[in-house]
């Protein structure tokens, strides 16, 4: 026989266990993040004290002579991510608007297309890398880069003779990789826009495009911005696909058709072959920079989203 008192006690005990378990899970995330930061700083201490602040703007990376500077990698990361957003964002928005606004009357079209977008997000990045190296790179070189260089070669950004392994190809690969993420989140955001917003516009005689542009997109802009930052986060940290097509050269060039390097590509290329403790430490410092960059992007994005949503509330 189990009395009601026992049941009550047991329930309280279960609640406390659950509470403790979920609290531990939540705290472990914070601990993990802090431990990661501490470990990165600890690992890069030797490099930090040897090179100091100039590590960030020195452009020589020579493991053989123990001279290390991260500028080429920071530059490459920023340039490729910028290209990725510039190309990826409009396409993602197009996909999201089509799925949420235009494909509404055709369930199967939206269903198949939406599933395919999500499938694209699940493709491992090394596959994009191999495909980029063997398929995308030669085709972009022949049909996009070569004509641009021939006719617009006087512009500094197209001035290098293209070989198909450069900032531009890496940026395109990244754009393809962030499109599924940005498009899927943006679509959910657009789907969440209340229909009253649309109806109000239609009742004023607006066209479908005007409804999207003046009512749906402004309403969803903070969400879309969040989606973009998610994409940017992926572009900054992406490693394998970029390593295959960026050309891995420590030279810094204004030309998009020149070979470059990114922070993550450097780590994956050189971490297994460190000849001195200082070399290993410098690689950890590159990881620290990447970690910091990701944190800054996310904090910036949070602040921006908060500001935007507050603005929306005031407008309403």
């Amino acid at each position, binding site marked *: 026989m189990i009395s009601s008192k026992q049941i009550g006690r047991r329930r309280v005990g279960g609640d406390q266990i659950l509470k403790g378990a979920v609290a531990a899970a939540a705290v472990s995330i914070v601990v993990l993040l802090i431990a990661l930061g501490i470990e990165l700083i600890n690992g890069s201490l030797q490099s930090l004290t040897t090179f100091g602040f100039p590590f960030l703007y020195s452009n*020589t*990376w*020579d*493991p*053989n*002579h123990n001279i290390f500077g991260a500028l080429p990698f920071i530059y490459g990361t920023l340039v490729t991510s910028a290209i990725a957003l510039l190309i990826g964002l409009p396409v993602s928005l197009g996909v999201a608007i089509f*799925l949420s606004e235009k494909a*509404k*009357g055709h*369930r*199967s079209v*939206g*269903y*198949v297309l*939406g*599933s395919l977008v*999500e*499938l694209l*997000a*699940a493709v491992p990045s090394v596959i994009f890398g191999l495909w980029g*190296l*063997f398929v995308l*790179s*030669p085709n972009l*070189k022949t049909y996009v880069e070569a004509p641009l260089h021939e006719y617009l070669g006087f512009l500094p950004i197209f001035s290098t*003779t293209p*070989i*198909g*392994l450069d900032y531009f190809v890496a940026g395109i690969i990244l754009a393809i990789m962030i499109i599924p993420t940005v498009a899927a989140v943006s679509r959910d955001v657009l*789907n969440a826009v209340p*229909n009253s917003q*649309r*109806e109000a516009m*239609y009742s004023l005689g607006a066209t*479908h495009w005007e409804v999207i542009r003046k009512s749906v997109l402004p309403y969803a802009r903070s969400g879309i911005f969040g989606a973009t930052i998610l994409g940017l986060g992926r572009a900054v940290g992406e490693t394998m696909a970029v*390593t*295959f097509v960026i*050309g*891995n*050269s*420590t030279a810094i060039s204004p030309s998009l058709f020149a*070979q470059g*390097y990114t922070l993550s*590509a450097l780590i*994956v*290329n*050189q*971490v*297994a*072959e*460190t*000849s*001195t*403790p200082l070399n*290993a430490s410098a690689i950890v410092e590159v990881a620290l920079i990447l970690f910091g960059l990701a944190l800054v992007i996310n904090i910036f994005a949070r602040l921006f989203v908060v500001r935007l949503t507050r603005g929306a509330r005031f407008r309403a």
Partner: protein
Amino acid sequence: MLENLLSSIFYDSHYTCCRLPINHLFLPVALKMNFNKTATSGTTIGLVVVLIVVVVAAGAYIALNGSGSTTTITQTSVSTSVSTQTSVSTSVSTQTSTQTSVQTSTATSTVTSTETSTSALLPAATVNGAGGTLVFPLMSTWLYTFNQLQPNVQVNYASVGSGAGITDISKGTVNFGESDAPLTKAQYSALPAGSTLLTVPVSASGVVPAYNIPGLPAATHLNFTGDVLAKIFLGQITVWNDPAIVALNPKVTLPANPIVVIHRSDGSGTMYAFTNYLTDSNAQWKAQVGTSTTPNWPVGTGCKGNEGVAGCIENNQYSLGPLEVAYVLTNSNLIGVSINYGTVQNHAGNFILATLADVTLAMQAGVTQGAAVPQGSTPWTGWSIINNIYNDSTDTGIYPITTFTYALIYESLSASYAGFTSQAQATATVSFIWYCVNQGQTAGANIGYAALPANVVASDKSTLSLVTYNGATLLTGS
């Protein structure tokens, strides 16, 4: 018009499509979940049908090529339900795995059957090693064939890179390390106090200049010298019809196109050997770049791995890049088709097209010429075949860019710093390395690795006989 628009809006007001990506990532799961429900959409059914057809076709193909037992399963599966589908797919996968294992065992048994194992069965032990990627294809073969001879011993090898291999053995997290380059002074000083690390050459490789010049016949192999290669990789020679290259290749019409320089982006023993050769050949390279697994390349494009370098050369006309001999000799689908490779001049003045025989000759010369092979516990810093044969004019057929890859093991094995837990483990480690050096050498020819010459094997044997566990010598017999 407006009515239509409004109705379409209201019709879809609770529209939630495709929110469950998992359904599409794991189709068999989705199938199990949805099959009894009526709500499965047409597209899902279509995809499932396609999947079933593919699985059945694969099963039938393997059944026809393999044993008869799977044929019956395939026949039942065509007519019926989902659960048998999954059973087919699993049976198919196990079928293929057993087939491949049978194939490898027959392939390798021909190698090992010629060698008679003189050592008795070793007691059970697990041996862990870590190190370079250059030797990994050969190491995988050794792991398998050694396990056939010594079924009680389990050897694991992590192909993590030479630098990481040296770090692991320094920290005692592995029983043996592996590296494409000897330890540097800094790496020696990072070893545990009182320890002595032995260096044992286990295999060798060469590096060839590979290129893609359209219009040249496959039978033509361009001639290179170390100095010309250094100038190309320094950015001093930039076009194919540079007088220095033309002088080496008087019978070939070279194009006026710029040379697209390719190299490895990841740290590698192949690049260590290549830059070692350039350092010996050109004073400016020595001063500016030097010998390194991860040099600071003055010009060129970095591509990941041998496959990456080959892909970059293949995709870029008029490109040139260093490739490992093993890769060149085992990828005949590429070589001579879209990629070709050149000869390199040795000190006797001959232009040598790399073959396993030339690489073996270079090893033989490398341990007899120049600086003496470090014996026993003497540090190997700076020693290389390339340095030793660079000025060797007596051996006319040697390939000049030839390099050893080394196993690393402590001289006195113990629990304190080398991570050994028993004498059985120590014996197994030494036996494995000795097997690689001795019997295992014949396994390399198929996959592009030259066999160690007899004088190197003898020198390795005397090094390995220094290894002790609690004072007891481990290498006994032949």
